[in-house]
């Protein structure tokens, strides 16, 4: 009798767990579809002519063409823009990580009277929107004589990335036991040695988080680069894509192809580093 009741409870438990699993899969599947379908739709329609797209928006291409990609590449001058995107993204990411972790160490472990003021002056930058800074920045780089140079772009990008970088690094490094730093100091180590031998290896997770944030934001950034350079040779990918974007646009084929060209490197980046990205986000989200 008791065994039968136990079996019934177990069966009910199994059923409940199967239902919960099914519900979880349904919810996750829906969200996956909501994310993946637009990408699939965009890619699929980039192989259609505009005429075909206008009469067949949801179906597969009847007569697939690569012409949209060839023309988008040529008209958008993506050949000139891609190298710049790589230069700005790699340069900015490397500098923001290096400067943020160094500053984070100083703010978290070498306190002085003015530390909170200097730290605060950096962190307040998080609250400033890019739009409020655009015109002052343009005037500044023009007056400095660095308008239309890669240096201006890198300086501004690094400056824009530092507030959040310093904030995350400082808070992360604050979580590393201060006793480690003090012991090393007693053993005669200088601050730079402590940074290199103790802090840097332990700050790898926050550096990964910063890298992910910085790579995504710099690769997709267009508001600042738009006002910092005028020569095509110095522009980056988003400016090429914006040459195709308009609510009045009539040539969807080229527009979609341009969007796919711009999106592809980020997708490849995610596919190649998805494990590191997931780990980095999870690790960077909690203090060390």
């Amino acid at each position, binding site marked *: 009798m008791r065994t039968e009741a136990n079996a019934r409870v177990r069966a009910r438990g199994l059923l409940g767990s199967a239902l919960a699993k099914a519900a979880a899969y349904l919810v996750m599947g829906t969200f996956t579809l909501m994310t993946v379908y637009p990408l699939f739709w965009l890619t699929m329609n980039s192989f259609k*002519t*505009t*005429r075909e*797209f*206008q*009469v067949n*928006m949801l179906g597969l291409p009847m007569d697939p*063409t690569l*012409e949209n990609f060839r*023309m*988008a590449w040529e*008209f*958008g001058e993506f050949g000139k823009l891609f190298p710049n995107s790589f230069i700005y993204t790699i340069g900015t990411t490397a500098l923001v990580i290096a400067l943020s972790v160094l500053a984070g160490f100083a703010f978290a472990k070498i306190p002085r009277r003015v530390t909170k003021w200097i730290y605060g002056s950096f962190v307040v930058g998080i609250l400033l929107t890019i739009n409020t800074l*655009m*015109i002052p920045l*343009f*005037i500044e780089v*023009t007056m400095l004589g660095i308008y239309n140079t890669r240096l201006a772009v890198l300086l501004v990008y690094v400056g824009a990335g530092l507030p959040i970088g310093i904030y995350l690094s400082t808070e992360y490094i604050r979580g590393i036991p201060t006793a480690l730093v003090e012991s090393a100091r007693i053993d005669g180590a200088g601050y730079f040695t402590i940074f290199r031998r103790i802090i840097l290896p332990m700050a790898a997770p926050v550096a990964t988080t910063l890298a992910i944030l910085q790579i995504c934001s710099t690769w997709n950034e*267009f*508001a600042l680069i*738009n*006002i910092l350079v*005028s*020569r*095509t040779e110095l522009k980056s990918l988003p*400016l090429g894509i*914006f*040459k*195709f*974007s*308009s*609510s*009045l*646009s*009539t*040539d*969807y*084929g*080229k*527009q979609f192809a*341009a969007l796919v060209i711009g999106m592809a490197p980020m997708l490849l980046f995610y596919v190649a580093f998805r494990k590191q990205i997931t780990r980095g986000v999870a690790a960077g989200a909690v203090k060390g």
Partner: protein
Amino acid sequence: MKKLIIVALMIAVAASLQAQVTLKVLNYQQADQAGYLEDVAIWERFQTLNPDIKLEMEVLFNDPYHEKLQAYAAAGTLPDVFYVWPGARSAVIHEKKLAKDLAKLLGPDYLKNFTGAATNPKNQLGGYLVQLPQSFTYTSVMYVNVKLLKDNGFAVPKTYADLKKMVPKLKAKGIAVMMLPNKDGWPGQSCLFSTVAGRIAGDKFFDDVLAGKAKFTDKAFVDSLKVVEDLYKDGIIQRSDNAIGYGEGPGLFASGKAAIFLDGDWRTGAYITDKASGKALIDPKAQASDFALLPIVALPGEKFPGVNSAVAGTGWAVSGSIPAGSAKEEAAARLIKYLYSEEVQAIRYSTGAYVPTRLGVKATLEPLPAMLPGFYAANPKTSYVIDGVLDPAVYNVINDGLVAIGNGTKTAAVVAKEVQAAFEAWKASKK
């Protein structure tokens, strides 16, 4: 003969010694528009024809263009030649008078080659010829599938009642009487309501509102909104059109889903033959035989019959900071005259970009764009396009209100109150 050769040589040497003039140009160019390649060629040809002028060109499009122009204006480093809108979109150029008066730069002899509407300074926010509009755009045009109407026993509609009569029969066949894709909000205002308000309230009403002598809650404006309300209530426009994106409209119309399609005159370019694929959304033969471009039908209660919303188009401007009488000013004027030449305007006309304001421009066109000059001639009376005279803080509320009216979630009176509140808030913010 010897003397002549010597003089010619001297001129050539003097010319070569003279420094090349550099013109900075901020160009507005859309890479996926029909005629992109032709546009690129236009600029290359100027460079070939004018080796003494060096063009340093920056090409932008859409919002990035306006943001950059704003930054240049703020820093006082405007390019020498740039692209300007006649209204609020380029407000900084107009209000601060940052461009030269083209009426003075180009002179009356040159400007007599253009339509009066294009050279009328009143059509520009700055009150002077900041730019020379390349086109004059009608924003409310009925694209009519005459064959579809005929097949169903209807003649081309002339009145609101004609449209209402079509509803039961066409609805039963799953065909919309009039399609207005309004998911994006602005077509309802630009392609329909501007003309409705122009006919019922009139331009003076908007002038009075801006001068504080009238309110959006006045009967004239509420009645205009009621016409839109009725168009949906009577089933002439379907409420589901608010879920159709602007880009989807031409495909649906071309496939016979609607008898009439409401859009601006610029949309004729959507139906012509695509040079890349050699295909047209509507075959040129059918464009000629089965379709017509007509003004919006006569509306109940209209006080200004026959007016249609229209606005001066975009055009080129010259920086006000170029010294008068300088070589740079001469070079800029030469570039402007080239861009507005018959040769260049004919290329733009033939690619479906617009119908030029330059007189006497001829081009080989497909039937739908070729109908536009006739449309303009038959409908000379124009009214404001609302987003050309009101601030975005106000016209966006009108746009949203029209969508709500279309969905049946707000009445005309409620929307009018909201617009008035937005106008008052905007006015207060300007103090």
